């Protein structure tokens, strides 16, 4: 099912995978929100590289623009707005018991996922091997996504705009504050 990949490709795939894994571990062990956010941006960038290597160029660009750009900037804005630099806010991790429980839950989930990965993939759903390359040549990187998005999933796309409108309205209402004299 999988074609043979050149060594150059495999090396870079593993390289970006290791970078993503290492920076996500660094992200989860940070106590300062700013350092954590920057490590998360690093993870997002290497995941974007993986998307490009998996023939999803448009998704890679979206990952950089939306996740690493917009969402993380919003997180950093909130950190800046709430002024969370002082040490009393930084001592946030739970005790050793919680860390032990978290490790056990993680191990359990990992073993479950590894068991699921053992199952055979349904072969009758597999598209022809060079289907995606042909789509890319025929429709460009954007058209590959735009064609199903605006044909098969048009209703979901329109509903997404309603979701975004509701989210914006909710964020404005929640963040507006009761009055000026609160401070």
């Amino acid at each position, binding site marked *: *099912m*999988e074609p043979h990949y050149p060594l150059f490709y495999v090396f870079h*795939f593993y390289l970006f995978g290791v970078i*993503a*894994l290492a920076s*996500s*571990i660094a*992200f*989860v062990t940070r106590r300062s*929100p700013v350092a*954590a*956010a920057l490590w998360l941006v690093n*993870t997002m960038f290497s*995941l974007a590289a*993986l998307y490009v*290597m*998996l023939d*999803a160029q*448009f998704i890679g660009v*979206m990952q950089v623009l939306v*996740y690493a750009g917009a*969402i993380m900037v*919003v997180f950093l804005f*909130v*950190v800046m*707005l*709430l002024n*969370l630099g002082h040490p009393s806010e*930084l001592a*946030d*991790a*739970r005790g050793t018991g919680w860390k032990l*429980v*978290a490790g056990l*839950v*993680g191990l359990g*989930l990992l073993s479950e*996922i590894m068991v699921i*990965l053992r199952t055979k993939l349904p072969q009758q759903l*597999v*598209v022809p091997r060079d*289907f*995606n390359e042909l789509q890319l040549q025929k429709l460009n990187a954007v058209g*590959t*996504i735009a*064609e199903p*998005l605006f044909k098969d*999933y048009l209703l979901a796309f329109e509903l*997404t705009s309603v*979701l*975004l409108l*509701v989210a*914006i309205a*909710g*964020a*404005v209402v*929640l*963040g507006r*504050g009761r009055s000026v004299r*609160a401070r």
Partner: protein
Amino acid sequence: MLAESLALTAALFIIGVIGVLVHRNAIIIFMCVELMLTAVNLTFVAFSRFYGPAGQVFVVFVMTVSAAEAAVGLAIIIAIFRHRQTINLKDINLLRG
């Protein structure tokens, strides 16, 4: 590369879960949720290589939902901070019985 992508997805997702369980800072917990969503996106992209481009469309939807979730969640965090002057989840236990 499908098996490697799925293994990386599993590892990233579980790192996100452990982060949610370990941390008490609400903003870092939100970032861990974002990490979990992104890990799932990698699964969609890896499968879309073999099962057609619909997986990439789903990634677009997941990104939209996570952007909406980040906007609303951070607004809630700001509202909580305005009331309690903290975002440490240790101090926000009003609903604990």
